[in-house]
């Protein structure tokens, strides 16, 4: 079974798109290095801002014919074929594929309100092509909207990127509760919170160290901690060059930290999600 990782947090700017895209690329490269028959990874960008689409494909002007919006609006029978038609190759790696977002997704929520089965309009077609990929990475918008719910329903694993700040960590439990609500309320028992990534960590700041120590000591959050990504200017330079962090600067501290997270997730994949 292909694992689908949704990167979610209702707070913006915590590194969801950065984590989703770089981890996706890392998975492709690590799987290929391990001679996996199928190293392909698909990114689904559900954020109408389209940051993940922009940095991986170099464009964000996707519209009614070639984006996630097209899939959500397609006739149910044709949705899988529409999905196949809309998936595009990233500029980062031939085996990293993207279902790009569109600014039109803003209106999609309104258009789909009241449409029967609307929350399942992503998971239904995605489930039919999932086995063509080693993993699926879903990037979400910074809110708990219909599109985020769709992302959660299409996922098997939720990963929560979080900054080491007081208000962020206070909000963390509400994020996890929300994911649990989706699991119970939508009867999606296979969804689970599989990881926590602390991003933009600055060890020179005492507050960051204190909060990280608290997370590590927490009986639940401590076990979920997948990795700590240091604040690193290479990240923003990589973005502005539309490059992955690994390509832009493989020796950067953030690259090394992300690669450790990738290794953990690939190991998780190899063990069949156990």
């Amino acid at each position, binding site marked *: 079974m292909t694992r689908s990782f949704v990167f979610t947090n209702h707070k913006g700017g915590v590194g969801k798109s950065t984590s989703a895209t770089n981890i996706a690329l890392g998975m492709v*490269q*690590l*799987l290929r*290095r*391990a*001679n*996996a*028959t199928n190293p392909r990874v698909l990114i689904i960008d559900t954020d109408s801002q389209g940051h993940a689409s922009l940095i991986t494909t170099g464009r964000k002007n996707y519209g009614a014919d070639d984006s996630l919006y097209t899939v959500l609006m397609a006739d149910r*029978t044709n949705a*899988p*074929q529409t999905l*196949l038609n809309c*998936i*595009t*190759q990233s500029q980062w790696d*031939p085996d990293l*594929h993207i279902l790009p977002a569109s600014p039109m997704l803003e209106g999609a929520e309104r258009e789909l309100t009241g449409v029967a089965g609307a929350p399942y309009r992503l998971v239904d077609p995605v489930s*039919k*092509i999932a*086995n*063509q990929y080693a993993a699926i990475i879903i990037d979400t918008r910074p809110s708990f909207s219909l599109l985020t719910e769709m992302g959660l329903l299409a996922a098997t694993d939720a990963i929560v990127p979080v900054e080491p700040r007081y208000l962020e960590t206070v909000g963390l439990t509400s994020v996890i509760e929300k994911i649990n609500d989706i699991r119970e309320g939508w009867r999606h028992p296979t969804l689970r919170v599989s990881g926590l990534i602390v991003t933009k960590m600055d060890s020179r700041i005492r507050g960051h160290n204190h909060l990280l120590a608290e997370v590590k000591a927490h009986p639940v959050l401590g076990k979920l901690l997948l990795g700590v990504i240091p604040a690193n*200017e*290479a990240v923003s*330079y*990589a973005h*502005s*060059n539309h*490059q992955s962090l*690994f*390509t*832009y*600067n*493989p*020796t*950067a501290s953030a*690259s*090394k930290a992300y*690669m*450790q997270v*990738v*290794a953990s997730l*690939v*190991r998780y994949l*190899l*063990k069949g999600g156990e």
Partner: protein
Amino acid sequence: MMARPNHDTQRMDDLLASVTSDLLGELPQNLNGNAIHVERILLEMVRPDPVQPRRVLPESIHLRFHQNQITPTQALRELVQIVQIAARHRGRPFNNLLELLPNADDERDDEPVATLTPEEVFLRDLVNLATTIRDDGQVNPLTVVDVSQGVTRLFRIETGERRYWATWLLRDFIPNYTGDGMIPCIVIPANHSSVFRQAKENTARSGLTAVALARQAALLLLTVHGYEIPTYAVENDFYRQALELDLRGKREYTDAVLSAMGGIKRSQFSIVKSLLRLSDEALEMADRHSIEEGKLRYVVGVPAEYHAELVRQIIDFNLSVKQVKELCEGDGSEQQVNDEDDVSPSAVKMAKVTQAIQSTTPQEFARALVRQEGDTSIARARLQAMKKLISETERYLGED
């Protein structure tokens, strides 16, 4: 100021290497094995092989489907329309495909299969297969070759094209489909694909027509001679390239080719291959109506412009091998030309017959014809040939 990017392939490798060593030890066989495996694949990602010698759809639909002019659903809709028209002409109109299936309460179902058109028989069998899949599930997976390129995920059918069409029929034309649009497939990596295995699968099954066998022979010959097998629909001329080839220069492949053709002899292989000399129209009719090789080998011997007419007569009058032989070889002798006066003796005889036409009644002529040929079917075939000769003679006189 922007920092200078630090592109370094070696460093990237080092980064990957730093986390790979643990993983390689844990890698399960199914992840890095290049083995044959079974997957459930979305129907839209599976396509029949355009050069598969065995035709499932009628030729015109086959070509347009493989040229991406029509979707699988449209292809089936056209097939259903063809069958509906044929069925209406024969007084068996139907609105629902399930009406094609045998019904114990309906006396019309006792009608022999021979009275149905090939398309009716095919569609009826396909509906039957579709309902079996609906009721019992797809027990037997298709065999497909992974021919994906880039983001285009595509699997080409090596065996199981009927099951593929039956699943489309079930999804889009038959009520109460509860499936999810996926089909189980045995996936063969592209480098394991083999035209020989496909040939063996084809020849091992009943119902492979002589024309399909001829295409099969051509495909094998072209392969062993290093021709590139296209991935798009081809006309008969593609297969006809094999008429110029033989197995003499390819001794190392001879056994494999003959074995893939069902263990036939080399002489029979040549005869089968020679069927590709038939005209396009004759090939299509012979394929649709499954005309045997024993009959077609005589048709190949006459000029190409008569092929379609002869095949039509074989179908209409259900001629035996002996009758076809007489018809074809007889026609050949009549066409021999006397070089001395440029008019054959048989033409002189025919001309004399026209003078005696007033003293003959149709009944007498019919009796004489049956007595001469010993069979009504052959007598009819002779008349058909005569009609054609008369109409062409009239045209010739008009031109003069």
